[in-house]
């Protein structure tokens, strides 16, 4: 069903809080830190104008940066992800009735969502971890950190789908 702007504002605040209060403190191992907040970018309706996506990505990343003292790192990665989203999902391939809905497993199907979220989360995490290191030294360590964290983020995103959208 269609959601009001206030729903998206609430979603924004909730994902930021979940990220900075819980996810940032989650230490499965020194390698893994899930970045659950990308959920906000993933859920925005496909019809959202591209400039709005970029600006939202910028603001979201900046919020996370302020809380975790990493100026610019999350901002650049989230803008990058917001920029790539229309490349990953072509709006013209989506049903007209669905483009204004928040993206969800329920409406778009499980495997479609897995592919969509998987690709975007991985791209975001790769960008984020390499920007954080700011070097290609320790290439494989950084690569495995990105993959591992991406897996955890992905699991959380899928779980949240089942909690948020019930049939």
């Amino acid at each position: 069903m269609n959601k009001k702007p206030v729903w998206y504002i609430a979603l924004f605040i909730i994902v930021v809080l979940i990220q900075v209060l819980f996810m940032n403190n989650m230490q499965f191992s020194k390698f893994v830190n899930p970045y659950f907040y990308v959920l906000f970018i993933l859920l925005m309706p496909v019809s959202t104008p591209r400039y709005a996506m970029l600006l939202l990505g910028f603001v979201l990343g900046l919020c996370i940066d302020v809380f975790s003292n990493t100026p610019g790192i999350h901002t650049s990665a989230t803008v990058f992800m917001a920029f790539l989203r229309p490349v990953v999902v072509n709006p013209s391939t989506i049903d007209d009735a669905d483009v204004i809905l928040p993206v969800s497993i329920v409406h778009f199907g499980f495997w479609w969502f897995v592919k969509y979220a998987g690709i975007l989360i991985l791209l975001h995490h790769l960008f984020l971890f390499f920007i954080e290191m700011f070097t290609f030294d320790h290439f494989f360590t950084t690569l495995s950190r990105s993959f591992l964290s991406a897996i955890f983020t992905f699991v959380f995103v899928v779980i949240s789908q089942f909690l948020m959208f019930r049939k």
Partner: protein
Amino acid sequence: MFFLFLVLETISLTLIVRYNNFQRVNVLNSSNVLAGSIYNRYNSVIEYFSLKKINEKLAAENANLRNELLGILHTDLEESAQKMINNELFTSISAKVINNSVNKQYNYLTLNKGSKHGIHPDMGVICSQGVVGVVINVSANYSTVLSVLNGRWSLNARLNGSNHFGPLKWEGQNPYIAILEEIPYHVNIFENEEVVTSGYSNIFPENIMIGRVVRTEHEQGAAFQNIWVQLSTDFQQLSYVEVIEKKSKAEQFELENTISNE
């Protein structure tokens, strides 16, 4: 659209690259009012779950202090007077850690005290186990601390046995290990040897515990050896810390400035 993307990316990359210039911009870090108060509220809730551990730590520290006190009482008066004078040079303010991380490349802490309580940038932060970090940002009620576990900082450290000193830098991944560099390779180093603050900077007093030597490495042909140090502070369990400041800091700074200006 691509243009907007480039503009936003440029802004954020500028933020990363020119980090040091933005470091003093108070709004962009976790000591600002919003982030600080959210962390503070959250912490006051979850603190209950770690009360037992905090209690045990305080009891242990208490016992340590009592031992030290007995030691002081039994040494001769002159020496203990000297000790007290040395301690007098530093004032300390107790603060609570309300946010903390150990698994990033650049780790920071947020404390629940700020300029209102007398905290300002460049003050040292220690806890009962050892060195914690240095204050970089303050707002009225909160402050941000650069942790030892941060690649952007190195700390002047001294080997307790041989008195050689050099910069100590975090290893980058393991929150328990740091590397002490620039120790000449002819110096004999023992395993478990204590590594303490040198006292050459204005941030920390002398002889604050940093950690113990675990192993050394000497590259072929290098004049220096690298020493792996097991940090004594458990950064994953930080709860209460002391923010310290040298009282005569301004005086010393002025004196040193007159020399460099000549």
